[in-house]
């Protein structure tokens, strides 16, 4: 039998091709619209390198003598805000993570409610949380701690809910079969499975919070942002440089520390 019939093969159906064309068109349209909206003034754009160079010259050399004691104290405060905020955030996030994980909480209404809480927490920027808590507690590090904690709830809660949903049901089923109660099944069946994810998420969030808490001072929520804001307002660019270098050093150290610990977790 001679096979003369050629069968056609194309990657996409006509409908898929049309769809892909429309997505491309929309993306280009959105880009053009965005550029037209921000109204870049050409003069300012051409002027920018000059301004930047001027600023850097004013920052040089950094006023390193300014570091101790005021910048150092503010930096320590930032560290404390980040650490306390992370711990508080994790404590607040865990109940919602358990509630959001569909394999642990069987009620679709509670799942949705927990998701709503987690999304709300993430949808508000930490600077906005800080503004809210400055209004509640007054200016100072307490507002910063709560801002960091409330921003962390969504991040930690979402990632932990995902880790919980990925836990194998088999071991938990085995513990159910031994007659273990719910808390014991969580403690001995689920917790060992999500433990590496938990420490990974906690460290990662602490790393992020360290960077976020550095700017909270701009709205009066304590930390190194306060001294940064002051230095900028008084045009003390050498001091600004010192503060930025201090932040850079701490963020870098935290990054190295967190990466090393996370590599050992699994």
């Amino acid at each position, binding site marked *: 039998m001679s096979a003369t019939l050629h069968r056609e093969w194309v990657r996409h159906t006509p409908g898929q091709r049309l769809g892909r064309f429309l997505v491309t068109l929309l993306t280009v349209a959105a880009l053009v619209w965005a550029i037209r909206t921000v109204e870049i003034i050409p003069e300012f754009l051409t002027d920018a390198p000059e301004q930047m160079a001027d600023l850097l010259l004013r920052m040089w050399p950094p006023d390193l003598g300014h570091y101790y004691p005021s910048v150092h104290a503010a930096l320590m405060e930032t560290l404390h805000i980040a650490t306390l905020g992370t711990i508080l955030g994790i404590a607040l996030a865990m109940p919602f993570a358990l509630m959001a994980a569909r394999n642990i909480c069987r009620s679709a209404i509670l799942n949705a409610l927990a998701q709503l809480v987690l999304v709300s927490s993430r949808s508000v920027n930490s600077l906005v949380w800080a503004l809210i808590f400055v209004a509640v507690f007054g200016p100072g590090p307490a507002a910063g701690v709560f801002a960091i904690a409330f921003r962390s709830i969504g991040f930690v809660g979402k990632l932990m809910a995902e880790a919980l949903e990925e836990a194998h049901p*088999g071991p938990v089923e085995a*513990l159910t079969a031994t*007659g273990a*109660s719910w808390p014991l099944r969580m*403690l*001995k069946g689920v917790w060992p*499975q999500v433990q590496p994810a938990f420490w990974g998420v906690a460290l990662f969030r602490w790393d992020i919070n360290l960077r976020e808490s550095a700017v909270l001072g701009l709205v009066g929520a304590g930390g190194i942002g306060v001294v940064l804001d002051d230095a900028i307002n008084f045009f003390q660019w050498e001091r600004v440089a010192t503060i930025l270098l201090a932040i850079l050093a701490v963020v870098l150290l935290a990054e190295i520390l967190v990466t090393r610990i996370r590599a050992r977790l699994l």
Partner: protein
Amino acid sequence: MTQPILEIRGLVKEYQPGKPVLRGIDLSIGAQGITAIIGPSGTGKSTLLRCVNRLVEPTQGSIMMGGQDLARLRGGALRAARRRIGMVFQEYNLVERLSVMENVLTGRLGYVPLWRAWLRRYPREDLDRAFALLDAVGLPEQATRRADALSGGQRQRVGIARALMQSPALLLADEPTSSLDPKTAVEVMELMARLTGEAGVPVIVNIHNVELAKRFAVRIIGMTGGRVVFDGPPDAISNDHLSEIYGGEDWL
């Protein structure tokens, strides 16, 4: 037969309404020996076993054990009933990141309070018993190793030790050898038969391998389509029966 330990009457399970997986099972299990349930995949063997310790909720029927209807129990009473029923799983279902010892000790979670499990302060007699069971299943040196470092056969031995740690009145084994190579499968069955024989614990085992079933069981139950179609001693099962249970005869 002596007084049965388990009495199943009219057991029906429908995962979706109108589509029963178990179509009215009546069984009574004696107080000794291994009862093997054979049958094709998807015929409800696993569902039957899981209805007994309520990992699956029965739709209808009663499961009497020790004067209680297991199908009606709730909350604390259900947990108290479950801890008297050990279970061994096809995929072992160990907590991979815990040590062998802790996996064996999870067999006591129906008995120990939360704080003891949390602080790993298990009662002295539980620890002694766990070590004795590890010796008995042939893993005396492995107590501190993590469960995920063990081979399949070793894991199933830990699974058996965990189930026996419960001091069960009945042991359920759901395809305990299906993930193991033939030699290890026989060894694990031998171990299970010996230890449960010594402890006088009756066993219900789902098993694919008819030869293994005949070798170790005192009674074979053949299921197909959610019904029991054979029930008798191993030497009574014929090719006609097997053909009825599994369908077709070319494979025999």
